[in-house]
Structure formats: structure tokens, C-alpha cells
């Protein structure tokens, strides 16, 4: 290398487009532009910029509810946003384009550097520059020892410092080099980034993630196949055959409520006690499923991610038959007090379909405003101390006739009529467990039998996650090497002067971009000290012996 200060990156600069170019020349120029450091830099910054919208606008994958709310609030912008993929930024064409270009740039940059590195590994340390004293880190001293003796010692001293040392016969200088691991780390880091991407891609192509809401009890068990999920998203190459045939049920659910301290009123220590079988016919095992403690079955993980109340409500129709019975999921509208909202539909009720809609209060209380007047009812506490459901009634078509998939959490009121009292106010019933209210007009009755709990269980299988993890860990190791290993060269030149003494010049060149003058100074000083120490040792054999002992 002619210029000792050049760095590998200097060769990879973007250049202006030359005027006369044939197709091959143009292709080569384009490739050079794409793989230049400057382009990589711009692409990195673009990637950062392109990530921002995904944190500003709701994302379909993250929170589809927020997306639909956003659509409702911005009816004119939503179609434009859809066209720009702003609700699915991280899967969008333009976001993918940036990171794919970045990867191409990375590969195009790394592959030539692999060859350069392979050559550099075999290459000998470069010869000493003519004027060592002109290098920023250099020093010199004179000695009585012969130049050959000094250089001989220099090879030993420097080799002991784990440099690769080169002293050609007849040369007046020793050349040494170390720190190739920096570039190795650099290459490793960039290759590992590709491994991470592959791992992540495997996960999103072949993996799946689904959720199910489960009640306590054997009869509400879950077995792992597509039909059992409430929501499910599989990768585009997902094959249902990989789903492991496990099954489980929740035997009990515990939660601890804090009744004192600054966090009073919040819940902690959620535990869902599971009975599970890894495959049909296998032995039943138990597991306490908690937040942060998923259950792993084969390559699939089972998580507890939420819980709530499910009042057991029985609806009898006008003819006295049970039209609807069982626990109904009420979704918390207040995460602190677990005031929840839910819907009960009795499609088979006679003479007319019945729909119930209303709130559930785990600890019912009437709210009070600042003057002490009663206001809206509410829940004082998340624990079910005084549970109460407050329901309003709808009759007519409650949306189950046409067979279209209606949400179980929403009552379609477009073709239903609200049941009113004689004074024209909506009919409302407040039920505590065990209570029954008879509906007017012979419509039937509603009973609040008791309280169940539901758990939201998330099940996911992410193949490739260990590949991605190994990739990131490797990348980190490579990064450490590329940041903290210092590639450097050392030269020692010894020349006989006119007066018979020997002038020894020592110089050091730090080739890392974050050169460290203190370390450089120390290393140079250490080398010179070692050289001089050996020289003294030579002059006085007993001294040398002492030194050996000191060192051991």
C-alpha cells in the first residue's frame, strides 16, 4: 500500500457520472454508486426516516382498533394513507425497498472487502517508510549496540507483543503489524446483519400467532388447530401441518389485588393454572402460566396476556325455554377498575330475538361529583367485591339471522328496537349474582347466575428466532471487534551513525478511525523501554538475570 494512511473505505467513494458510457460502464457505475459508503449512509438515514410514520400513525398489525378509529376520524385522508401503505409501514413496498437496497449495498460492499481482507491476512507487514520521524507517533534514541543486534531484539520484543514481525535480510528496519481482527469484526458484523434478516424473515414467513379467549374449566379446553382460535395470523408460507397437537385447559385463575400503597387498586400476580397435554393421549401436566413466564411446548409458546370478567347470564324467552346461557366475555373499558362492556344475544328467543347490552362493575358504586351529588355509576375496584351487571334490552333482529359474521362484542342495532318502559325511558335492569329480572310484555327473563373469568391466551410459533438471536449476538461481537481492536503498525529502524553509535528510530501508526493518542504513546514508550531494557541486560549479564526474575 503506497499511502500508509489510506483506509479501506476510502476506495469506496461515490463518483460523478462520467459522460461517455456504454451499457456495461453504466451498470458498473451504478453498482459502484450503490455500494459506496455515501449511498449506504443515505440509505441508513432514509431507513430511520421511513420508520417514523409507523410510530405516528396506528398500524394494522399492532393495533387494528386504533386504525379503524383513525379511519373514522379522517375519512378523507384514509384512502390516501391506504394507498401509501401508512397503516402497514413495515411491510410496505417503499420500506422494503429501502432495506433491500441497503442489504444489496451492504453485500456489494462486504464481498470485495472479504477478498481484500483475505489478501491482507497473507500479506507481509509493509516496509518502513523512509522517514520514520515524520510519522505522528515516533521517537528515537542512540545506543552503542550494533544495528543488527538492536533489530534482532526488536523482533523478539515486538513479537512478544503479538505483532506479526517482518525483518528482511539486509534491511535496516523491522516492520510489524497487528490488529487484523478489527476488519474481521467489521465484516462479521455486516454478515451477521444479513443472518438476522434471514432469521426474522423465516419467522414472519413460516410462523404464526393467534389468540384465544378462554374460560376456566375442563369444558372450555383448547386444542391447537386453526378452528379453535379467535384471531389468527400466519405467515405467507405458513403450513397448518406444523402446528403442534397440544391441548390445554385453565383449571383456575388467581389474581392478587393491592388494597394499600400508592398502587392500591391495581392487580398483580396473575396466574392461570393450566392442565396441558403435549399431544393427544399424552400424560397431563400442570403449568402455572404467568406474565413473563410463557409455556413452551415444542417450538410453540403459550402466553398469558390478559384477563377479565365473564358474567354467566341465562336468558329465558317468553315460552320459558332457555334461549342463551353461559359465560359472556365483557371487555374492560377501564384497565384500573375493570368496568367492562359486553353483549348477550339470544337469537332463538320466542316470540322475538333478544339482545342485551351493558356494563359490568366488579365493585359497584355510584360515582359522586365534587359536591357529593350522585353521578354515573361506576366500578370502585377491579376485584369482584360487589359485582353488578347493568343491561339494556333490544328486540327484533339482533343480527344473527343472515348468517354473516357479526362481532360477538357488538350488538347490531340497525334492525333492533330498544325496549322502553311505560314512561318512554329505556328499560334497564341491574342484576347481582343470583338475581332474575322478568322482562315486560312477556318477553322472558334474564338471570345473572354467577361470575366466570376469562383469560386471553396468545399462542405463537416463530421459527428462526434462534437464528435471529445468534445473528444479533454475532453482530455484537463483530461490532466490539470493529470498534475496539486497533489495527496498527510498528517500525524499528537501526542505523550506524558516523560516530559509531547506532540511531534507533521507532514509529507507530494507528490505522483505526478512532485512534487513541494515549494508548499509542504508551505502546511506543513500552516498546522503547523494552528495547532499552534488553540492551542494559546485554551489557550486564547479572542485570539481565534479575530482569528475567522480575518478569516471571
Amino acid at each position, binding site marked *: 500500500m503506497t499511502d500508509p494512511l489510506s*483506509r479501506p*473505505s476510502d476506495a469506496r*467513494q461515490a463518483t460523478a457520472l462520467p459522460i461517455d458510457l456504454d451499457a456495461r460502464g453504466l451498470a458498473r457505475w451504478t453498482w459502484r454508486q450503490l455500494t459506496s*459508503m*455515501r449511498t449506504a*449512509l443515505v440509505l*441508513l438515514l432514509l431507513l*430511520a426516516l421511513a*420508520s417514523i410514520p409507523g410510530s405516528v400513525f396506528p*398500524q394494522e*398489525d399492532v393495533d387494528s*382498533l386504533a386504525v379503524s378509529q383513525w379511519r373514522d376520524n379522517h375519512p378523507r385522508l384514509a384512502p390516501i394513507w391506504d394507498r401509501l401503505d401508512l397503516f402497514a409501514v*413495515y*411491510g410496505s413496498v417503499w420500506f*422494503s425497498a429501502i432495506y433491500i437496497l441497503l442489504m444489496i449495498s451492504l453485500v456489494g460492499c462486504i464481498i470485495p472487502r472479504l477478498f481484500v481482507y483475505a489478501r491482507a491476512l497473507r500479506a507481509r507487514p509493509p516496509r518502513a517508510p523512509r522517514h520514520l520521524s515524520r510519522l*505522528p*507517533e515516533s521517537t528515537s534514541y542512540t545506543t552503542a549496540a550494533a544495528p543488527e543486534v538492536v533489530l534482532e531484539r526488536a523482533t523478539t520484543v515486538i513479537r512478544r507483543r503479538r505483532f506479526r514481525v517482518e525483518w528482511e535480510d539486509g534491511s535496516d528496519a523491522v516492520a510489524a503489524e497487528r490488529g487484523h481482527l478489527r476488519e474481521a469484526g467489521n465484516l462479521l458484523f455486516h454478515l451477521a446483519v444479513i443472518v438476522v434478516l434471514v432469521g*426474522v*424473515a423465516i419467522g*414472519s414467513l413460516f410462523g404464526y400467532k393467534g*389468540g384465544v*379467549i378462554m374460560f376456566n374449566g375442563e369444558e372450555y379446553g383448547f386444542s391447537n388447530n*386453526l378452528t379453535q382460535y*379467535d*384471531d*389468527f*395470523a*400466519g*405467515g*405467507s408460507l405458513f403450513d397448518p401441518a406444523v402446528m403442534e397437537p397440544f391441548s390445554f385447559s385453565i383449571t383456575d385463575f388467581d389474581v392478587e389485588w*393491592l388494597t394499600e400503597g*400508592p398502587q392500591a387498586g*391495581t*392487580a*398483580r400476580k396473575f396466574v392461570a393454572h393450566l392442565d396441558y397435554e403435549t399431544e393427544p393421549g399424552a400424560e397431563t401436566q400442570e403449568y402455572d402460566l*404467568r*406474565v*413473563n413466564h410463557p409455556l413452551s411446548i415444542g417450538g410453540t409458546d403459550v*402466553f398469558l*396476556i*390478559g384477563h377479565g370478567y365473564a358474567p354467566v347470564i341465562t336468558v329465558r324467552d317468553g315460552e320459558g325455554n332457555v334461549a342463551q346461557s353461559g359465560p359472556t366475555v365483557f*371487555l*374492560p373499558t377501564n*384497565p*384500573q377498575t375493570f368496568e367492562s362492556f359486553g353483549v348477550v344475544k339470544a337469537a332463538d328467543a320466542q316470540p322475538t330475538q333478544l339482545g342485551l347490552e351493558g356494563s359490568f362493575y366488579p365493585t359497584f358504586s355510584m360515582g359522586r361529583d365534587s359536591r357529593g351529588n350522585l353521578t354515573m355509576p361506576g366500578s370502585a375496584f377491579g376485584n369482584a367485591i360487589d359485582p353488578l351487571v347493568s343491561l339494556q334490552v333490544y328486540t327484533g333482529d339482533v343480527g344473527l339471522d343472515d348468517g354473516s359474521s357479526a362481532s*360477538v362484542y357488538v350488538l347490531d342495532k340497525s334492525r333492533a328496537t330498544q325496549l322502553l318502559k311505560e314512561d318512554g325511558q329505556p328499560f334497564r335492569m341491574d342484576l347481582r349474582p343470583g338475581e332474575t329480572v322478568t322482562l315486560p310484555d312477556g318477553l322472558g327473563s334474564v338471570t345473572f347466575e354467577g361470575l366466570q373469568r376469562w383469560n*386471553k391466551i396468545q399462542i405463537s410459533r*416463530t421459527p428462526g*428466532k434462534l437464528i*435471529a438471536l445468534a445473528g*444479533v*449476538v454475532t453482530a*455484537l461481537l463483530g*461490532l*466490539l471487534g470493529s*470498534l475496539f481492536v486497533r489495527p496498527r503498525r510498528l517500525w524499528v529502524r537501526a542505523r550506524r551513525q558516523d560516530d559509531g553509535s547506532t540511531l534507533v528510530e521507532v514509529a507507530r501508526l494507528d490505522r483505526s*478511525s*478512532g485512534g487513541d*493518542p*494515549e494508548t499509542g504513546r504508551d505502546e511506543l514508550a513500552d516498546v522503547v523501554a523494552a528495547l532499552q531494557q534488553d540492551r542494559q541486560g546485554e551489557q550486564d549479564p547479572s542485570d539481565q538475570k534479575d530482569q528475567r526474575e522480575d518478569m516471571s
Partner: protein
Amino acid sequence: MIDAQWETLSNQAVAAAGVVYFLALLAYAVQWAALRDVPVRQLVGTDGEPVAAGPGDAAADVPDEEVAHRTETAGRLGLLLTGIGALAHLVALVARGMAADPNRVPWGNMYEFTLAGTFVVVALFLATTGRWRLSWLGPIVVGFTLCVLLADVLWLYEPVAPLTEALESYWLVIHVVAAVIATGAFTLGAITSILYLLKARSTRQTGYLARLPELASLDRISYRMHAFGFPVWTFGVLISGPIWAHQAWSSYWNWDPKEVWAFITWVVYAAYLHARATAGWRGRNAAILALVGAATLWFNFIGINFFSTTSQHSYAEGAGTERSVVLRLAGPVEAAEEVGVVVGPDHAGT
């Protein structure tokens, strides 16, 4: 000691740290005021590079012996007080952790994170000032820490509370400690980058900027701070974070706003490291990139906590703590509105 006493001790220690830092700032002010009108003489360091004499070397270039003595004493006093302040700061952190029941690491909310982050800034400064001759950085570090601590106590203070379920994991220790350390290092790097940009524009021969080390040296110090912070950030955000996210939320990367911004910060600092090796980007542009990185870092900490309602990392208020478990419900459960099976491409990972 009972928990309430630990909590009181923590609060008192924060106050003590604040007072001592303020005294340190006064000492530094005395030192720099004395050097105000003394022109800087360029010295040549052993590495051949010119170095400006910092206040630590005051004796070398200040002709008046009395001034030299005064600046040196004031500088040493400043450093000593900074060290004492850091000790009080540490006591505040430890007591904060002891005050919780059960005892825990003191970084469960924004107040505690800021308390820990500013401690890292001071500790890193104290650890490197001797070797890298950073005494000139003292007044800035102390002033910055003082202001941030003040804001922390005034606006972010929260009484000690137990951790929420989702935070009860040893990954909290690993993930957040990495984030705190990296934040401290990046903050110091941002300070030196600002000083670099200011000095690059300044032509004055006296005063603070003139006494800073040469531009190349400032650039190097700033690089070292970032080179230390970047791997730690990588570990915190891209290794321990996803592992924990996988355990707590069933998916190692959720494109949660906090994650997005942590990723943006990572990308910007990666760009900074590349820029230092790219012709036309070294120096000024790299320093600007470092500041952009710091801006994304602090926006992530402040902005996302206060303005984002969707982030599962919203620990801004006491009430926010429970959110991480329960609000999560609102999403997936409502998503289940379409009862039945939806098999489609999962965009989340790609």
C-alpha cells in the same frame, strides 16, 4: 430501616446531591472566571498534536502564579465536589431500590430512569476524566446533571411503588441497565459534539471555547463516548429487549413506538459511525448526526412516554404502569371481532 425511611433517605440524598453538584458548579465557575481573559498558549503534545491547555494544566500557561494557584485549587475542588455529589446520587439510587417492597432495581419509571441516567453521565465523566483529560468537561456535565435532576424532581417525581407484573423480570435489570448506560454515554457524546460544533465556529483566543482541546481531539473524545454507547445500546435494544418482549408479549419485535424509536436511534448512530469513516462526512456532519441521534434518543424517552397512547412502554405516570398488561387486551381482543380464522401474511416481522 423500614421502606418509608429508605424512601425519605433517597429523597434527601437527591437533594444533597443537587446541593453538592451546585457547589461543584460554583467551584468550576470560579476556576473558569479566573481564566477568562488569559489568552491560550498552544502547547505541543507528545503525540505531535497541538493541545490547548485545559484548566488542569493551568499552571503551565498562566503567567500569574496566584491565578494559576487559584484556578488549580478551584478545579480540584470542583472535581472533588462532583465526586461527593455522585456518591450522594448513588445513595439516592440504592435507597430508592431498597424502599420498594419487594426490593428491586431503581428503574421502574421515568423518575428513576432519569435519576439513574444522570448518575451514569457523572460516573462516566469521573471514570474518564483522569485518563482523557476531560477536566474542561466538568462544568458542563455538572450543570447539565443539575438541570436534569431538578426537572426530574419537579416534574417526574413519583412515590415508590412496586413493579407491575410485566416488569417483574430479571430482564428488566439487564434491558434497562443497558439502556441507562448507553443513554448516559450518548448524552456525554452529544455534549462533546455540541462543543465540537461551537468550537468549529469560534475564532476567539480567550474564554471557554478557546480552552477546549483541538477539534480533532474533541471529535475523538466524542467518538469514544459513542463507540462505548453503541454496543451497549445494541445489546439493550436489539438483544435483551427482544428476548424480554418475547417472554412478556409473545413476540420479540412488535413495532411498538418505543421500539421503533429505539431502532431509529440505533440506525442514526450506525450512520454516525459510518460517517466518521466517509470522506465529506467526517467532522462537522458526523457531529450533526450524533446530535440527531441524541435527539431521537431523548424524544424516545420523553416524547413517546408522554404523547404516545399506544406504546406498551408508557411508564410516564403511575397509572400507566398497569396499562402494559391490560391495554394490551384492547388491541388483540377487539381484533378478534372478525370471529373466524384469518390466515394472511403477517407483516410484523419483515
